[in-house]
């Protein structure tokens, strides 16, 4: 039983990461009907921001500030910088193609992804950058329930992901900006005719999505320690899978999809074998798509003829 709960904790932690990245993915799709394949690379940039903040304050072994303050700076800076990068991406790569055939922004998104990955390679090098989290957050800190261990970083990831998800839900459902985002998602032209500043609304969506990916990147660095220019590809793929399984365009769906994906990976590794993890996880994706093509919480799109 302890093994079950340990794998559950591990799966929920990884799933929370996937969920945060998937949220940004699904928000952009909801508003623009664009699959932003560069979104995973925003996660990668967030990871680098976190790494360089640690180095700025003396490195993991000789920090010059308290750890809680360091974490706040890492998360806030990653959110702001990566959010800003998301806005820039939208302004220069996607806005000019807003009325182009759907394939054009899709190809552009792939191009932006390669651009970000190779820019990081050029600027930061290909060698692994390591957070060395255990040097400033003790491995023995956290909670132990029987033989089930939940360390501090896992607690941080789970709590922060939950808070951000709730905050996003409140923003979308209870604020004017959220109402505007829902209006643009429903019908962009009608929203424009009603006086909504569509450009600002879309830019805000990209900012929020990018910020979430940036925060997820820092979490990923704290959890997995390693940062390279290529980590965005896997993160993006998993986020895309989570968003689609949950129902593309649905915020609760993205969270559910992310958590399901993380837990599925964990249990398959634990109870079957790590050899088959990716195979079975993507089989699960296919199975969900066959049974519910719009995703678990997605709604079938009505097309007027």
């Amino acid at each position, binding site marked *: 039983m302890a093994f079950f709960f340990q794998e559950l904790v591990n799966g929920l932690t*990884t799933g929370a990461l996937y969920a945060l990245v998937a949220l940004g993915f699904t928000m952009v799709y909801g508003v623009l009907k664009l699959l932003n394949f560069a979104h995973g690379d925003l996660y990668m940039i967030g990871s680098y921001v976190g790494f360089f903040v640690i180095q700025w304050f003396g490195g993991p072994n000789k920090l010059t500030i308290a750890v809680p303050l360091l974490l706040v700076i890492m998360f806030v800076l990653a959110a702001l910088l990566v959010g800003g990068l998301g806005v820039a991406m939208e302004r220069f790569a996607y806005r000019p193609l807003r009325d182009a055939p759907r394939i054009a922004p899709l190809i552009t998104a792939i191009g932006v992804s390669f651009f970000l990955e190779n820019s990081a390679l050029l600027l930061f090098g290909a*060698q692994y950058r390591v957070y060395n989290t255990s040097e400033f957050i003790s491995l023995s800190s956290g909670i132990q329930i029987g033989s089930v261990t939940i360390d501090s970083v896992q607690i941080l990831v789970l709590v922060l992901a939950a808070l951000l998800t709730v905050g996003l839900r409140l923003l979308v459902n209870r604020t004017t900006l959220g109402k505007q985002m829902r209006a643009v998602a429903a019908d962009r032209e009608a929203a424009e005719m009603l006086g909504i500043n569509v450009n600002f609304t879309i830019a805000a969506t990209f900012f929020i999505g990018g910020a979430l990916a940036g925060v997820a990147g820092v979490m990923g660095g704290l959890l997995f*320690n*390693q940062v*390279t220019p290529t980590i965005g590809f896997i993160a993006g793929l998993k986020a895309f899978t989570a968003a689609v399984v949950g129902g593309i365009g649905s915020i609760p769906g993205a969270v559910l999809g992310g958590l399901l994906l993380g837990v599925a990976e964990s249990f398959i590794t634990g109870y079957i074998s*790590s050899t088959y993890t990716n195979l079975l996880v993507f089989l699960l994706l296919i199975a969900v798509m066959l049974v519910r093509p719009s995703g678990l919480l997605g709604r079938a799109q009505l097309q007027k003829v």
Partner: protein
Amino acid sequence: MKRSAIIAAAALGALVAAGCGSSSSTTGGGSASGTTKACVASIGLEAPITGPVAPLGQEQLHFAQLAMITDNLANKTRITLVQGDTQLNPAMATTVTQQFTSNNKIVAVVGPAGSQEVEAVGPLMDRAGLAFISGSATNASLTTGKYPTFFRSVSKDSVQGPQDANYIVNTLHPKALMIVDDQEAYSTGLVSAMVPIFSAAGIKVDHESVSQKTTDFSSLVAKVTPDTTVVVLPWQVAANAQQFGKDLAQEHKKAVIFGTDGLFSPGTFTISGSYVSSFGPDITAIPADSAIAAAAKAKYGTFGTFGPPVYAATHVVDEAIASVCKSGQTPSRANVLAAIKNTNEVTSILGQPIKFDSHGDVVNGKFFLFKIDSSGKYVLVPA
């Protein structure tokens, strides 16, 4: 009048004789040194200079450069090193190899580093008749005769795998162990060599598999049972093993990590109590290597065991080129390949002779075992 003409003729004759004497001394001098012209050639170096194992690749590059400089001075040759960065990636290694094979100045290649890269470039090298010597590719299948121009200055996994497995069985005595491959040729080859030995010894084996791109090992670590006292990681990315070790500690697992030569990375893999085998010895402990070790340390800082085998490989190529020049020939791919096949060094930087068998393996090669102490230092243990 007659007398003046004789003196003039004698003077002219003396001048002509002096001129002829000068020419023959240049030639003679040339003959005495064995080269009538400078011995010029290029060697390609394929190494993961950047990428996931950049520290190892950088070390290989430095030792190749050191060997080239030393041998050029000793042999009065002008060999140059052409670098090719493969990032331990077979696709990139193929691109680099295509560049090298189309460069006629390159008469031999040192590298590539990874077994999966050798598998990718072997046919290209064979087609170009280009000899290539790896200082770190240890998969046993590489020297079954399918790559006739391939050599290695280190021993192979069919030696490493059983040697390590027998040490684990006879010294560590686990009741159960986990062995995780990273889905690359190097790793799966070692697993194939080791698992039968564990099974024959009655050890319960949990064989897992993860991609080299995996960074989250928490779920896999959770599978490590209290009976599992050893986790074998025949991996190439030391940063991954370091993360695995941290996850073991975080989940309070007592298993000891046993890594193979791909994890030999003193700056990156520092989990106390872990074992790491290596195809290269610690050359700072070999008295005959004190000058090279001191020069390497002064010029490049601390180093591990990935550099010296590449030094040995580069030295083999340099000596082959020098011997071709000494025989009066111009270095070409064909004659350098033939010279490498005839290599017979009584001693080398690795503390053992270098002579190749018909498939390119070092005759009587062996592996070395290290244990990581609490300060992260790699200490040699009897294998």
